[in-house]
């Protein structure tokens, strides 16, 4: 371990003193010996010293044997770097802050990428979990029939297990006031597929999935804690209406699937009457691949199984295909593209910062040319000088990175606040992996910043001290290259940001087809346990009628699904009157709404009439009788016939929840056609939609209240009204509709504002780059310009000449940047709305902005150069 001891010695402060003591002992002994031979004390000492040789050289040589040479050099370089950097505090602070922000932002975004995208899902062998979707020819994904999931599981050979789930609202009736819960209903094998067992108790047995079998619950850790964290809770039963429900297990705190807010899991009965039908669908499918099975093998296997089912059950399975995707992709969802986009742009920004700093270091190296020449003449090697300059860049990068980690800590905390809806956001943390990443990026940054200046700054310097006067150097073309890189990269960034801004703008202008302003949304708690469907309908109708009477309320409606946010409820319908067999299936969005929905959201009725409450339409209270379709539905599926008066059937699945049948089986009569509304997002074109008129899609549906004034101002009046009507019910989730829609696009906005922020920073760096480089070029040419002015050159010519250089370089770089932007904008396609990735107006605008900004930045140093006082400049130095 001699190298280790040497390394330690390098840092030992007492080493020199120790050696000196040892050496002077030797000289003293020698002198004493000489004295004993009869010399005078003085002469003895002199002779001893002469014999010993130069003590400083001796000490150095001895020390060299004790220490690690390269470390010593490095240490000396670092000390020297610190010393020179503190001599130019302005420069140092600028560079360190730039790097701190650059590295900090980069590290923060990387930590998000690492947590969200790179790490496996927090389940054992999480990379083997897949989402299994079924697609029906010509339409998007639909829910899966439980019977089909069982078939898939039995017949496939590449899966350890296939299971399914759906999440539903539930109500806890234990307390004084009912509280709303989220309950996941899971198919058999759910916990085996996830690879997680309850922390206490056990998971579902076959009998739990049997219709008429025991009703059992597994509760989440959070729920268990909110109930008092009693370990004896496992095995306890409680009664809900006629049912006895037993809590059989508690999940570990880390288990948050299918959603963070799920409070409990229940076994879905696979042999319930409604579960046997292959046409009734409500599950989302997931599976666990066997070890070593690839996605392609699983896909091929399951496609084969489904093809078999298709020939066995042509009516229900004929058109169904399956698609297998990694579960992580679903969890991560749309944030993948956003995160990579942010990471890409934040890295480009860091690159711009690096070129900027490289240019600064380059002019610094040029100013130090005399010093470097002196070092050469004293025998310093180019390698040593390069090492010295690189160390300076390294010191800057290290200090910057250290501050950058502080920035990153703050930024990840801010990200968690700003993007709470980002999946796995709680897993983001600065840990060892992230630190390692920072160390590596610091090394890369040091090289990026330091290599060019070190290489160029030491080249062609003659090993002689420079004469008193600074030599005019022509070696600043490389600086213009660096400026060019900055301009190129920032044009690319700005183009991306501008396209996203245009999209946000276009989205805000889009006609949603409904009016979300002055609409308050909330739930009134309700439970499945105590009421019949008729009672639900009557209670909800009474509440909305009463709220309607409140002053300040214009209309009140019920909906199963909130409009304007991504929530798809696709179903396949059929026509009672029959359709051509070859035509596309009637796949449509399904919404259960009360008749006032269209008035409340101001969706126009285009033909026919509005639907009525079943009771008003001459039917039974709890039976759906009438429906409306939107124009898109009519145009797409019923273009060749009169839509009004036809009867829709099918589409039952959302009607069945928890084994409660809401409404009788359709057919429902189409009574009218309404305008197209962008029900699931402003950026999604309206899809064919069926609105069935029913006030109780579930016991606690969304309530929408159109108010004449500020919607939140009505909240208290509504609460009071509900308390008067139903003292035991709570009003919860009271938020204006436009706020909810805004929240749904928060990620979009955050992405856009972050990218805009990066792009503007890049533009700022370009200003600094152009200004700094031109100032430097001008300072080198100061004497030349002065001489020309003295000889009668026009100031305007000088300005013109300097500006021409700048404009030429910036223009060329902007053109290259434009090409890059065109290449990379394709990756933005899915994030853009109402603007193409190659939108000429946007791209031209970006180039104009960059050129203008660069022009203004160059004007100052160019003008200053032209107004130099010739005589003074020539006398300088």
């Amino acid at each position, binding site marked *: 371990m*001699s190298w280790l001891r*040497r390394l330690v010695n390098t840092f030992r402060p007492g080493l020199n003193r120790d*050696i000196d003591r040892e*050496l002077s002992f030797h000289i*003293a002994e020698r002198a004493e010996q000489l004295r004993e031979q009869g010399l005078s004390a003085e002469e003895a000492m002199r002779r001893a010293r002469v014999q010993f040789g130069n003590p400083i*050289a001796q000490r150095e040589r*001895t*020390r060299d*044997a004790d220490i690690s040479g390269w470390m010593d050099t490095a240490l000396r370089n670092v000390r020297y770097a610190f010393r020179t950097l503190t001599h130019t505090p302005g420069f140092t602070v600028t560079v360190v802050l730039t790097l701190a922000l650059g590295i900090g932002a980069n590290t923060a975004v990387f930590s998000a990428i690492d947590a969200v995208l790179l790490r496996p899902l927090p389940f054992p062998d999480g990379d083997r979990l897949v989402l299994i979707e079924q697609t029906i020819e010509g339409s998007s994904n639909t829910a899966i029939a439980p019977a089909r999931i069982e078939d898939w599981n039995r017949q496939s050979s590449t899966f350890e297990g296939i299971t399914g789930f759906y999440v539903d609202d539930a109500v806890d009736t234990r307390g004084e006031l009912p509280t709303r819960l989220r309950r996941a209903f899971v198919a058999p094998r759910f916990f085996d597929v996830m690879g997680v067992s309850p922390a206490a108790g056990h998971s579902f047995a076959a009998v739990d999935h049997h219709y008429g079998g025991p009703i059992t619950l597994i509760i989440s850790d959070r729920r268990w804690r909110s109930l008092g964290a009693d370990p004896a809770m496992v095995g306890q039963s409680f009664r809900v209406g006629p049912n006895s429900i037993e809590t059989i297990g508690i999940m570990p705190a880390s288990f948050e699937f299918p959603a963070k807010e799920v409070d409990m899991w229940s076994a879905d009965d696979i042999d319930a009457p409604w579960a046997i039908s292959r046409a009734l669908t409500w599950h989302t499918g997931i599976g666990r691949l066997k070890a070593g099975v690839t996605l392609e093998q699983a896909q091929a296997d399951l496609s084969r199984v489904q093809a078999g089912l298709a020939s066995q059950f042509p009516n229900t399975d004929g058109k169904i295909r399956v698609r297998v995707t990694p579960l992580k992709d679903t969890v991560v969802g749309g944030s993948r593209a956003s995160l990579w986009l942010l990471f890409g742009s934040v890295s480009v920004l860091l690159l711009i910062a690096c070129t900027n700093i490289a240019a600064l270091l380059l002019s610094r190296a040029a100013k130090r040319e005399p010093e470097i020449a002196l070092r050469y003449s004293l025998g310093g090697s180019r390698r040593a000088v390069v090492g010295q300059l690189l160390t300076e860049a390294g010191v800057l990068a290290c200090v910057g990175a250290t501050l950058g980690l502080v920035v990153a800590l703050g930024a990840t905390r801010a990200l968690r606040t700003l993007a709470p809806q980002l999946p796995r956001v709680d897993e983001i943390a600065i840990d060892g992996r992230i630190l390692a990443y920072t160390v590596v990026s610091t090394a890369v940054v040091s090289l990026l910043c330091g290599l060019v200046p070190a290489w160029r700054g030491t080249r062609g310097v003659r090993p002689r001290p420079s004469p008193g006067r600074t030599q005019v150097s022509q070696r600043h073309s490389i600086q213009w290259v660096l400026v060019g890189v900055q301009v190129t990269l920032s044009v690319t960034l700005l183009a991306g940001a501008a396209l996203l801004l245009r999209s946000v703008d276009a989205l805000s202008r889009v006609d949603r087809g409904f009016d979300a302003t002055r609409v308050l949304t909330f739930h009134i708690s309700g439970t499945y346990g105590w009421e019949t469907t008729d009672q639900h309908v009557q209670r909800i109708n009474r509440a909305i009628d009463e709220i309607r009477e409140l002053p300040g309320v214009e209309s009140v409606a019920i909906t199963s699904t909130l409009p304007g946010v991504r929530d798809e409820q696709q179903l396949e319908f059929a026509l009672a009157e029959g359709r051509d067999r070859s035509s596309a299936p009637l796949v449509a969005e399904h919404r259960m709404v009360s008749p006032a929905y269209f008035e409340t959201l101001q969706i126009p009725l285009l033909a026919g009439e509005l639907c009525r409450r079943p009771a008003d339409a001459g039917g039974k209270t709890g039976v759906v009788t009438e429906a409306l379709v939107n124009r898109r539905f009519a145009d797409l599926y019923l273009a060749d016939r009169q839509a009004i008066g036809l009867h829709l059937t099918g589409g039952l699945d959302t009607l069945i929840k928890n084994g409660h049948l809401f409404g009788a089986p359709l057919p429902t009569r189409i009574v009218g056609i309404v305008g197209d509304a962008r029900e699931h997002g402003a950026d999604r074109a309206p899809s064919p939609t069926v609105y069935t008129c029913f006030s109780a899609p579930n016991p606690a549906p969304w309530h929408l209240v159109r108010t004449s004034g500020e919607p939140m101002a009505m909240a208290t009046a509504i609460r009071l009204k509900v308390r008067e009507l139903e003292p035991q019910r709570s009003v919860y989730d009271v938020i204006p509709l436009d706020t909810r829609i805004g929240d749904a696009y928060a990620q979009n906005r955050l992405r856009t504002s972050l990218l805009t922020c990066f792009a503007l920073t890049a533009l700022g760096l370009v200003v600094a780059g152009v200004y700094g480089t031109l100032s430097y070029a001008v300072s080198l040419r100061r004497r030349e310009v002065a001489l020309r002015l003295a000889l009668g050159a026009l100031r305007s010519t000088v300005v013109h000449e300097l500006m021409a250089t700048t404009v030429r370089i910036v223009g060329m770089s902007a053109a290259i940047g434009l090409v890059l932007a065109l290449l990379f904008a394709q990756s933005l396609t899915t994030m853009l709305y109402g603007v193409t990735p190659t939108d000429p107006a946007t791209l031209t605008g970006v180039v104009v902005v960059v050129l203008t900004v660069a022009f203004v930045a160059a004007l100052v140093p160019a003008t200053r150069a032209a107004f130099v006082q010739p005589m003074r400049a020539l006398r300088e130095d």
Partner: protein
Amino acid sequence: MSTSKNDILQGTLTLLVLKTLATSKRMHGYAITTHVQRVSDDLLRVEEGSLYPALHRMEQQGWLKSEWGLTEKNREARFYSLTAQGRKQLALEEVSWARFTEGVGRVLRYV
């Protein structure tokens, strides 16, 4: 490695120091020089400039260990002694020295 004159001297110094320390318990640098001089009847003189770098290098290599102590005259000095590794090294160096002198001798004897 080239066998320049310097290297031979360097190697010799190591051997001399190891051998010197093997015979006594511990010694400071000055004592080593006087010991070599005396034992070799003034034939060999340790060059003082090379001694201390050599001692320190040998210590770093683990052949010697050093400690501060007092001489008989109550002066503070750094004392060196041989480690187990140093003894092994001495054996190796003695063999290679023997082979070296044997080789040189044969060349010189060749007519």
